[in-house]
């Protein structure tokens, strides 16, 4: 290994001139969009479902949360069969229904949404628990008062529950933004960036540059970009304590 030499911003300038770099940034931004908002919506939905008195509670909680505990490697191995072209579970089901197979992982438009579907399944249970504690922190008096005023169902949710969950949303989105960047096990197992780098995410690009191309300068520059991004998205997490006042 050559000793590193100080080159100023050379690595960054070289990156900015690489079309693949911009593609990866685009993929990663798209990935964040595909995972953060859907897993928050599903997480909140699950939280609402288990925030009730029901005999099934323990069963529901285990079923919603267990994917969180599994290693991403195991999840990706199972889901690569679910998504496998033609013979996979999804495509076989479609063929039996007389529809075209999806070939989800082999097309550039469907590969990231397909991976995101799996990711949401794995992550939603985790976010569910934050939303659940957010929901349970809303004081019953507020809910009662709103109900006496005639607020029900969706109206109650939109005007009372949703605004009161504000701090939880902020915190959860920060957690989720951080999480969605820092895992690429599924990319390594299911696609390796294929087709044509349509599923190459930032951390996978770092790994490729560093350990396939042995391009430590480039991969270190990429690491700096990732680090700065992570620092920015994790800021809201640390306002959580202060915002707790909002609940009471």
């Amino acid at each position, binding site marked *: *290994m050559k000793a590193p030499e100080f080159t100023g911003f050379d690595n960054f300038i070289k990156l900015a001139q690489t079309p693949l770099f911009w593609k990866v940034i685009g993929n990663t931004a798209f990935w964040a969009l595909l995972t953060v908002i859907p897993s928050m919506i599903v997480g909140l939905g*699950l939280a609402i*479902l*288990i925030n*009730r008195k*029901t005999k*099934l509670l323990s*069963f*529901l*909680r*285990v*079923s*919603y*949360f*267990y*994917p*969180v*505990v*599994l*290693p*991403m*490697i*195991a*999840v990706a*191995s*199972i*889901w*690569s*069969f*679910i998504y*496998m072209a033609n*013979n*996979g*579970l999804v495509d*076989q089901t479609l063929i039996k229904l007389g529809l075209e197979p999806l070939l989800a992982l082999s097309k550039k438009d469907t590969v990231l949404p397909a991976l995101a579907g799996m990711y949401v*399944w794995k992550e939603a*249970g*985790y976010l569910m*628990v*934050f939303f659940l*504690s957010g929901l349970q922190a809303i004081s019953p008096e507020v809910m009662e008062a709103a109900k006496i005023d005639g607020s029900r169902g969706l109206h109650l949710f939109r005007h009372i529950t949703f605004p009161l969950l504000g701090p939880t949303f902020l915190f959860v989105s920060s*957690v989720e933004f*951080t*999480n969605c960047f*820092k895992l*690429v*096990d599924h990319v*390594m*197992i299911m696609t390796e960036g294929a087709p044509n780098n349509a599923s190459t995410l930032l*951390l996978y690009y*770092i*790994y490729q540059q*560093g*350990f396939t191309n042995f391009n430590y300068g480039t*991969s*270190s520059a990429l*690491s700096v970009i*990732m*680090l700065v991004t*992570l620092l920015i998205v994790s800021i809201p997490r640390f306002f959580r304590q202060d915002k707790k006042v909002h609940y009471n």
Partner: protein
Amino acid sequence: MKREKIAHIFITAFSAIIAVVFLIPLVWMIGVAFSEPSFQMTFLPKTKFTLDNFKYVWKAVPFARYYANTLTVVLLTFVIQFFTSTLAGYALAVMDFKGKGLVFVIIFMQLIIPNDALIIPNFLTRSKLGVIDTKLAIILPFLGSALAIFLLRQHFKSVPKALFEAAMLDGANTWQVIWKVYSPCAKPAYMSFAVISVSYHWNNYLWPLIVTNAPSNRTLTVGLAIFAKSKEANMQWANVCAATFIIILPLLIAFFIMQKQFIESFVGAGVK
């Protein structure tokens, strides 16, 4: 009233359906793992129950070795973290020293920066140290845990000063105070960081992949990934499902037994 009851039944049924949807990948995987290989995938296994996939996989892949490696890494990491984090947590919670604020900020920063962003510098340091392809290399970046220090510091801060003074009057030294007075008061913190640490290192893939080459040092996740991507595994989903099952079983059992502890720990940590 009647309307609300109908709504209640409806929502309960809906939540159960969603639960079943969530369970499909797991149940399907277990079904495939215990049935004969077939060329096309179906929701319900068509063949009779068999253990052949497990027999094949156990022979084809050195899982016993991988298990031993993962257990070594996971336990050793936890024991070292237990020790270092207790001392650091105590120092930051109870003692007064110059630069305490700075030390705290540096440790706190580590909470924000995930290890995965640092794979390149971590790898380069390990290769300078000449420890690449050892279990030590997997453990080295995790000798301390910012999360554990943070949790323990909070717990230690809430230990009443009177306990500390009473122990001192009885002639205990700092070492004894830490392990006999403070440490037993922080059991919940140890539990929750044990769950986080063990499941993180059990599941971790990228780092062990980078720093190990020989099968004798690979962990379960790396072994599974290599098997799942190998030629022998191509289209052999029954075998891959069996291998996956072997790997996730201990964690799943632990989760089913201690679901509340798991959920609380994951959320209490706020970081994974």
